[in-house]
């Protein structure tokens, strides 16, 4: 199975690999997936309380090239967006952008889940209610 050029590029030059201080109130952390399933994604956002804008995003991913590319792309998209806008990122946009084959759609689902988990972590830390997401995504 050949990878798309975009996946290869993200794999070779991943954007925003790293760790933010998860103890900080400005930082939301989402850890999704499971080692048994062959992919674990940790996605972090740093939010400016005043403006509600995402000022930084980092990831670390254990998984195949498509999982790495999906999370790398997600961090790129998150930076500079408001939290509300970030909630609208849909896994299918990631699929389209990276030309993921059907067997790799779960990688994009995982990235979407990681974004939502990070936002909820940030909300919880700052006294806001967690958003309940529908189980819309295919697992």
């Amino acid at each position: 199975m050949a990878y798309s050029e975009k996946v290869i590029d993200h794999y070779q030059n991943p954007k925003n690999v790293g760790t933010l201080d998860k103890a900080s109130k400005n930082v939301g952390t989402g850890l999704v997936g499971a080692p048994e399933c062959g992919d674990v994604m940790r996605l972090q956002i740093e939010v400016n309380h005043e403006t509600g804008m995402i000022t930084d995003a980092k990831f670390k991913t254990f998984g195949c090239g498509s999982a790495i590319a999906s999370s790398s792309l997600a961090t790129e998209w998150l930076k500079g967006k408001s939290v509300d806008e970030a909630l609208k990122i849909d896994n299918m946009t990631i699929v389209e952008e990276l030309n993921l084959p059907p067997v790799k759609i779960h990688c994009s689902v995982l990235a979407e889940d990681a974004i939502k988990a990070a936002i909820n972590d940030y909300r919880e830390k700052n006294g806001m209610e967690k958003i309940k997401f529908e189980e819309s995504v295919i697992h």
Partner: protein
Amino acid sequence: MLQLPIYLDNNATTPMDPRVLETMTPYFLNHFGNSASRNHPFGWAAEEAVDYAREQVAKLIGADPKEIIFTSGATEADNLGIKGVYEMYASKGNHIITATTEHKAVIDTCKHIEKLGGEVTYLQVQPDGLINLEELEAAIKPNTVLISIMYANNEIGTVMPMKEISAIARKHGVLVFTDGTQAVGKIPVDVNKDGIDLMAFTAHKMYGPKGVGALYVRRKNPRVKVTAQMDGGGHERGMRSGTLNVPGIVGFGKACELCMLEMESDAARTSKLRDKLQAALLQIEESYVNGSIEHRLPHVANISFKHVEGEGLLMGFNKNIALSSGSACTSASLEPSYVLKALGLGDDLAHSSLRFGLSRFTTEEEIDYTIKSITDTVLKLREMSPLWEMYKEGIDLDSIEWAAH
């Protein structure tokens, strides 16, 4: 000069030895006859070539040429051997003993037999990949007709104690079938010394062509018979009908002859390179060899790199190095290898493994390149791995409630 890509997936298939191809060419062109054509020179030439190849094949495994049944490959030979015995010995019993780490061609054949009403025991293996001989003996029942244990495993290279297995079988009057696909041509296999009654093997794992294999069927002490699984002209002593693949068989014969002559030097050379590769990769923190190190094919190593995922790892170099991962993500099923899981490896380690299979043609330069390439990729991916970071922080990964998806 190092030539890319490098091929280290020789358990999947080997390149053909050019000397093998050379012997085959005339049988595609001038000597194209059907070996069953008894009344003209085209047929005679083909028959003569097949007879000669049969001798070459038999000699490699210490058999009599009459005990070799040519097939389309090892999968067919597995099917014919197991189903053939099951049908032929139906009046004696219907129980087969095999192991969980067998090749799919054996496992699925056994599953088929279960559907037909047969009874199959799948022995668990020990963490080193070997079966427990006491468990084997304990599994034998009055209705047991066959023990089917592979000679050497295709994923981890573990070599089973065939002599001990067959001694137990003989004591209880049970036949022994072995899938010898990975072992024949690589290590000494002798059907008499090893006490094997039936054995499947194939040309394309020993520098021969694809599409041709053989089933060894013992003719003396005891005389073994199998029920044919293919109806037709009664070729191969009635056990496998179908026009013989003459050029393929000629190539198979030559490949066997070359293995006979060169096995010892090939094994010495590949094991030295394999050991170099393994030692270098074990320098990487948290890397492990899967399966027995002692009872193992000389050219095989299966290594797990904890906290990096196999498919992601392969992507780091698979344009330049052909390897196989224990994680079958590559075949789109997202399941980690059932063989590695049978060793008791967690899914995470099973997902993180690479299978190395060296060949007669592997060079030291290729191994040096591979060591560097894989080391660099593992280190790079660990920098990117949340599991590695947690491991380094001393977090017990098993204590985390993962949201399995």
